[in-house]
């Protein structure tokens, strides 16, 4: 009897969280679809001009989509190699003490609120970019890429590290016993064996970069330009956040549509993640 009661309570609580997700999804679709219909799917997704408040408003979000894509790719190009090699170093080469210290530091870093990244970026990185590249303003796609690269590092390192450390010692011994050097062994045996975990870390990093709003808003400049490395740009996330407080009518609806697009991006990333996880289990 008691067992059953507890079972029911847990089921209900579980259902509540599922319900919230469903509600958000439905709400986003209901409030996001009408504007897309009104503006036209092609005009909305591929329009190059976003002018939401003029007398002749235009709602093209291609600049935001491309900025998000380029920003994410850029941060991966910088963050992935650093994160990957750090993970290999920490998992296989670092003395145990150093490894332990780093793991603690990485744990702390991943807990830092994104507004702090934004603040440091705004006060240190943006002026730095302006001086070094001699720009009128340092707030740019470039600055946001650097900040995102730093932000995805802990995720990439932590998840890759875990999967690299889970590679059975047997594999490495077999390789070493064949006369392979340690470096050859790490990159030809350990890394392939940890492949799905490392890919997972990449996808998680992508998810983090796409979803980040606050830090990006503080360093990207937020002008609705088509992306260019040293120009001020606006991401999908910031596009929603910036205008929401004073929006109305079609503009407001269009912001919901942007959120819906962002939601779809994240769903795709999560789908990839689920496929990877399943592969992981099979292997």
């Amino acid at each position, binding site marked *: 009897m008691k067992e059953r009661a507890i079972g029911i309570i847990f089921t209900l609580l579980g259902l509540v969280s599922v319900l919230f997700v469903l509600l958000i999804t439905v709400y986003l679709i209901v409030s996001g679809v009408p504007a897309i219909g009104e503006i036209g799917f092609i005009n909305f997704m591929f329009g190059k001009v976003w002018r939401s408040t003029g007398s002749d408003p235009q709602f093209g979000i291609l600049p935001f989509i491309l900025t998000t894509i380029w920003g994410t790719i850029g941060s991966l190009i910088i963050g992935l190699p650093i994160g990957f090699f750090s993970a290999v170093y920490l998992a296989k080469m670092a003395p145990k003490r150093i490894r332990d210290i780093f793991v603690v530091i990485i744990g702390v870093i991943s807990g830092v609120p994104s507004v702090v990244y934004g603040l440091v970026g705004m006060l240190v990185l943006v002026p730095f970019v302006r001086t070094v590249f001699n720009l009128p303003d340092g707030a740019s796609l470039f600055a946001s890429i650097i900040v995102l690269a730093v932000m995805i590092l802990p995720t990439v390192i932590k998840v890759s590290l875990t999967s690299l450390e889970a590679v*059975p010692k*047997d*594999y490495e*011994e*077999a*390789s*070493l*016993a*064949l*006369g*392979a*050097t340690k470096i*050859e062994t790490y990159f*030809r*045996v350990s890394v*392939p*064996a940890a492949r799905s975990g490392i890919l997972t870390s990449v996808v998680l990093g992508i998810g983090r970069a796409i979803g980040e709003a606050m830090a990006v808003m503080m360093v990207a400049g937020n002008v609705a330009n088509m992306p260019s490395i040293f120009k001020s740009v606006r991401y999908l996330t910031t596009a929603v956040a910036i205008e929401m407080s004073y929006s109305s009518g079609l503009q407001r609806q269009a912001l919901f549509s942007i959120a819906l697009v962002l939601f779809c991006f994240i769903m795709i990333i999560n789908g990839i993640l689920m496929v990877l996880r399943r592969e992981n289990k099979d*292997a």
Partner: protein
Amino acid sequence: MNIIESKNLDLFYSSHQALKNINLSFPENSVSALIGPSGCGKSTFLKTLNRMNDLIDGVKVTGQILYNGKDIYASDVDVNELRKDVGMVFQKPNPFMMSIYDNIAYGPRTHGIKNKAVLDELVESSLKGAALWDEVKDRLKKSALGLSGGQQQRLCIARALAVKPKVLLMDEPTSALDPISTSKIEELVVTLKDKYTIVIVTHNMQQALRISDLTAFFLLGNLIEVGKTEELFSSPKEKKTEDYITGRFG
């Protein structure tokens, strides 16, 4: 002619002495069995022969291991070259998560062989050498993890053969296998000694009796007795050896 020889070999794990003054030599093209109860140092000794003990923190070795007359613990020895010559098969079959073909080709590729025809030839001859070719020749591109335990262990032997070693060290290679797979490996070991020198650690005294020419009995880090297998089992010189092989302890 002795291909490997240990002289006054001591080994310490930090402060614990795991091997005490071991003097033992292995003639070319023979099978030598190392026997003794768990923790007697036989596996540790085996691993000193290709320096796999280097991987363990805090291991210190004194004395000499001569391979073809040269001390393998000398500072100018390339340990990767040594391990190419002195291969190893482990207790648990440990094929890489790759295809059967890539498992075998891994060693040769590591040592710089890229030519496809040469690799094909090596894969075939190594698998034939390990008596596995007929069973896997139609599925070389399939994952090695799909093989049975016994097949995996023969694959590991084939993988070791592919780098053309002179000596093959086997660390209880059948302890994780069923009796049928075990007897296949045993038959294989006997045929392999035509080309290789084999040192095998085993818990199974019947196995030592069946396949080895020489047997060395270890106890608590000491080499108690070594001799021709038949003599050691039929008329051991040491009381401790007799007690062990007649099953009084261990």
